[in-house]
C-alpha cells in the first residue's frame, strides 16, 4: 500500500471544498473497488475523501420516481420492498453481481463508477491506454475473450463491469450530481460513461471532483415487464460474459416501448436501440423476439477471442425478452 492522506469531511459542502482545492483527491465510499485499484497499483490518490458517513444513505420513493441516494448499500437497495415491487430489474441486477459480502459494502454510486476489470488495466506492468495514455492496448492482441465488442475502439476494448448500471440504463435513470463549482447537475445514465474512442483514460463525463448525490429512476408505467439475464463463467461472484436487462411496456398484446441494455460487451451499459425499435408496436411472438434480438449487436467489432459474444449476446437478449414477457 502506498501512503496517502485520508479525510472525512463532515458535510457535502466540506467535501466539495476539499475536492475543489486538493489535487490528487479521490472519493472513497464502500471502498470495494477503490481499495483494489490502489492495491493493484492502477490508482494512487494522494488523498482519499471518505463520503461514507455523509448524509447520503437511503432510498426515497414517490409517484414520479425512485431515488437511490449515493451511499445506499447494494444489499439494502436489493432488499427494499419498494424496489422489489416496482423495479425488480434493479434488485435482480444487483443480486446477480459480486458476492453478498461485497454488496454489503458497495455503494450505489460507487457501483456504477467502478473501474473496468480488464486484466491488463489491472496489471500495472502491462501497457494500457486507459491507465497510462499512449502506452498502447495490450488486450487487442492479447487475451480478450471477456472483453468488449460494442463501442470499443482501436485504443481500448475494456468493458464496464456493473450489473446495476445495466439495469439503470434500461430504466432510463439519471444521476444528480454536485459539481465542485456548486449547484446541481443532472446527467442521463446514458451520458455518464464515455466511450473510449481515442481517449480511453476519460472514463466518465463527470468533472474532476464532481460527486454523484443520487440516482433517480422514473416511473413511466405501472406494469413494466422486466428481466435480467446474466451469463458468466461460474454461478456467482463473476463478471458478466454477457448480460441483458430489459424493460418492456406492453399493452393490449403489443409492445409500446422496449428498452434493452447490455452488460459485459461494451465500455458502458449499452443500449441496443435497433433491437428496441424493432420491437415497438409488435405483438411479441417468438419470431419477433428472435428478430429483434438479432439486431442487438449491430455495429459489433469483436476480436477473434470474443467473436462468440455476438451470438451469445443475441441469445441472452432473446432469453431476457422471453422471461420479461412470460
Amino acid at each position, binding site marked *: *500500500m*502506498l*501512503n496517502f492522506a485520508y479525510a472525512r469531511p463532515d458535510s457535502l459542502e466540506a467535501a466539495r471544498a476539499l475536492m475543489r482545492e486538493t489535487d490528487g483527491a479521490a472519493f472513497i465510499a464502500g471502498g470495494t473497488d477503490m481499495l*483494489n485499484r490502489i492495491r493493484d*497499483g492502477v490508482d494512487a490518490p494522494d488523498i482519499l475523501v471518505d463520503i461514507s458517513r455523509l448524509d447520503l444513505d437511503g432510498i426515497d420513493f414517490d409517484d414520479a420516481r425512485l431515488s437511490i441516494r449515493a451511499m445506499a448499500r447494494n444489499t439494502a437497495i436489493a432488499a427494499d420492498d419498494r424496489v422489489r415491487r416496482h423495479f425488480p430489474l434493479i434488485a435482480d441486477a444487483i443480486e446477480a453481481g459480486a*458476492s453478498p459480502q461485497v454488496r454489503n459494502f458497495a455503494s450505489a454510486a460507487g457501483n456504477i463508477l467502478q473501474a473496468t*476489470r480488464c*486484466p*491488463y488495466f*489491472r*496489471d*500495472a*506492468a*502491462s501497457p494500457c491506454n486507459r491507465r497510462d495514455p499512449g502506452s498502447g492496448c*495490450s488486450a487487442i*492482441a*492479447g*487475451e480478450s475473450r471477456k472483453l468488449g465488442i460494442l463501442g470499443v475502439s482501436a485504443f481500448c476494448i475494456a468493458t464496464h463491469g456493473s450489473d446495476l448500471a445495466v439495469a439503470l440504463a434500461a430504466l432510463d435513470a439519471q444521476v444528480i450530481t454536485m459539481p465542485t463549482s456548486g449547484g446541481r447537475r443532472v446527467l442521463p445514465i446514458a451520458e455518464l460513461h464515455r466511450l473510449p474512442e481515442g481517449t480511453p483514460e476519460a472514463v466518465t463525463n463527470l468533472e474532476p471532483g464532481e460527486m454523484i448525490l443520487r440516482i433517480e429512476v422514473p416511473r413511466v408505467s405501472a406494469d413494466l415487464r422486466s428481466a435480467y*439475464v446474466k*451469463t458468466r*463463467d*461460474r*454461478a*456467482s*461472484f*463473476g463478471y458478466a*460474459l454477457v448480460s441483458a436487462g430489459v424493460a418492456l411496456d406492453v399493452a393490449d398484446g403489443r409492445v409500446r416501448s422496449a428498452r434493452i441494455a447490455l452488460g459485459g460487451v461494451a465500455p458502458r451499459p449499452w443500449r441496443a436501440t435497433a433491437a428496441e425499435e424493432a420491437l415497438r408496436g409488435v405483438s411479441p411472438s417468438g419470431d419477433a423476439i428472435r428478430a429483434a434480438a438479432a439486431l442487438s449487436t449491430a455495429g459489433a467489432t469483436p476480436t477473434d477471442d470474443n467473436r*462468440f459474444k455476438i*451470438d*451469445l449476446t443475441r*441469445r*441472452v437478449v*432473446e*432469453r431476457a425478452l422471453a422471461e420479461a414477457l412470460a
Partner: protein
Amino acid sequence: MTALTDLKTGPSRVEGRAKVTGTARYANDTMRPGMAHLAFAGAAIARGRVTAIDTSAAEAAPGVIAVYTHLNLPKLTQPGGMREAIVALQGDVIHYADQFIAGVVAETPAAAEAATRLIRAAYDAEPPVSTMDAAMANAFQPEQWNGFRTPTSSRGDADAAYAAAPVRIDWTVETAMRQHNPIEANATMAEWDGDRVTIWNADQYIVETREIAARTFEIPEENVTVLIDYVGGGYGCKVGPWPHTMLTALIAREVGRPVRMALSRRQMYSSAGYMPATRQRLRMGLAEDGRLQAIVHESVCQGPAHDPQYCEWAAIPSRYLYACENVRTQHRVAPMHCGAPTTMRAPHEGVGIFALDTALDELSYRLGIDPVELRLRNIAPRDQHFDLPWSTNAQAEVYRTGAEAFGWSDRPAEVGRLRDGDELIGIGMASALRPNTKTNAEARVSIDAEGQVTVASATSEIGTGTPTALSIVAAEELGVPMDRVTVRMGDASLPRAPFVAGSVTMNSVGSAVLLGARALKERLAEAAVGDEASPLFGLDAAALVANDGAIADPADPTRRETFASVAARADGGEVSALGAFAPEQTGSNSRSLGAQFVEVRVDPLIGRIRVSRMLGVFAVGRIISPKTARSQATGGMIWGIGEALMEKTELDPVTARPVNASFLDNYVPVQGDVPDIDVIFVDDADTDPNPLGSKSIGEVVSTGVAPAIANAIYHATGKRLTRLPITSEMVLG
C-alpha cells in the same frame, strides 16, 4: 485394533477449533522480535536480460531498510535441489515474466511492497515463446523421474494392433495451465543466530527444506530448524523449498534481522509452480465387443525452457487403468518462457484420464455399449505394465456400486433425451485413478505416567486432517481415548516424514505410527515383566496382551498393569518407541480407484452449465478417519469442477505474462457451483501394501471428474468437448 470410527460419525478434526477460532498460526503469522519484511519486485519481460536496474527511489522510500538485486546479493555456491532449477537474483537472465529482479526489505509489509513499485529496470528483451503452438516445434523427451515414471513405454505391438482393430478412435484433447491457488500464499520467515537458522515455512516437505537449507548455506543440518504449525492449503505448490524460501533466509542473514516474506497473489502464478497445459493424442483400437486391443497415448506438456525437470506424465494411466495387451505411451515437453511447473492435485492421471475416458465415452455411443458396461468389459485383471497381480481389485465394484446408487439404469442411452424447461439434462461417468503411493516414514510414539500419548513425526498439516488421522491410529492401537493422544508435527527435527503430497501421508506416516504404537506396547510389556514392582513381573512378555491402555495376562486377569503405571517407573517417567515404515515389494501392486458419476444441466440457448448431482465411489483401502476422508473426497470432486469448467491460467500470447493472475479473474468454484455430493467408500481393506490397510485418497478423488462432466455434457447436448475448461460458448445450441 479397536475401531474408534464408523463411517457415519468418526472423530472431528482435533485442530478444528484452532482453525475456526483463528488461533491456528500460519507461516505469515509468525512474529519475531526485530523482524523486517521482504517483498520481491518482478520482471516486466519474460525473456532477456536486465541491463540496468535503478533502486535509488526504492532505497529512499519510507521504511525501507535495504534493496537487493543480482548486483549486490551474495552468490549461492550450492543453489541446487529447490523446486526450480534457476534461483532468481543470482544473475541477470530473465526466463519468465514476474521473475524476481529485486527484493526490498522494509519495516512493514506495506512499505516493502510499495517500494517494489519504485524499482526501475532496463532490459534487453527477446520475444518469448508464449503458446503451445509456438513451443511444439521444440518439444523434447524428458528424463525419467524417480525410476518408475518413464517417458516412454511399450508392451505388445500397439501400432500394429491399432491398425488392425475393427473399431478405432483417433482422439485429441487439451488441458489447461492451472494454478494451485491455495488461500494462503507461499510464505517464509527466517531468523539467524550466528550460523544457526530457524525457518518457518508454508511447506509440505519440511524435512527437505531443512536439508536444502543446510546445503545452500553450507552449515550442518542440525543448525537448521524448520517449523510450521499449519499450512493453509498446498495442493503441491509448497512441496519443499522454492527459491523464495532460501532467498528469504539469505536476505535475513544479510540484513541481520528476522525477515518475513509472503508471495503476492500474482507471484503465485510464476514463482510457486502450476500444472502445465497438455495436448494429448490418444489412439484406441477395440474389438466389436468393446474390449480394448490397442492404446497409443502421446502427450506433450508445457514446460519452461530454462528448467526441464518436470513433466506431466499424462499418458501413464493408459498403462494401468484398463486391460489392454498392446500399449505404447510417449511424453514430450514443449519449452516456453514461463515459470517452473510442479505437481498439482491430481498430477499425471488427473489430466490423462480426461483423454482416456472421453474417448471411451465416445466409443460407447459408436458401439452402442453402455458406458458403465464398456468399462466393466475392460477391467484390468492385473498390473500389466509392471506385470504384477493387484493386491485387491475393486474396479468392477466401484462401477457397479456407483451405477446402482446413482440410478444409472434410468438413464436413457441416447443423447438429448432429458429436458427440464430450458435445460437439457445429461448423465455421465468416468473412472478415477491414482497410484497407491507409499514411502519411508518414521514416527515416535510415547506414553507418560499420566497416560498421555504423544505421536511425533516431521510431517505437516496442510488441511487434510493429518493430526486427526494419526491420533486415531495411535488411539485405536493403544486402546486409549482420542483425547489422550497429542500429535506433534511441523518440526523437521522430529522423526523423518516424507512430503505431504502425492497422497502418501496416511499410508506412510500412518503406518509408522501404527508400527510405533505396536513397538511401544512391546516395550511396555518387556519393562513390566522385568520389574519386580509390576504385577506382571516374571511373565513371558510375548504371552501378554496389551489393549485398552493396559497390559494383562490372558490366563489371569488379575495380573494387569496400565501403560501409565509402567511408564511411571521408567527413566524420565516415559516410555517411547520409534516406528519406521519402509515399503516392501510384496509381489503385488496396488492402486487407488474410483468412479465419478455426474449429472449436468445445460441451458443451450445461453450456454449456462451447472453440475446438479455428483457421486464419487472410491476403493481406497481401509478408511482411517471417516470425516476427513470424506472431506478430502468432496473437496477433490469440487476441485474437479474447477478443472472441468473454469480454471485456466492465461499467458499473454505476445508477452507471456500471466494475464488473469488474481482470484477476481481466474475462477474457482464458489458455493453456487457445487451441488450435493455423495461419496461412497467400498470395502477395500488391504494390508498388503502397508500394515494400516489404507490407500491413497487425496488425489484419486479429483480424477475422473472432468471427463465425467464432459461426458454428461455430451449426453445432454450431443456436443463432444475435448478442450478444458469447458465454457459457455462451447455448449451453445
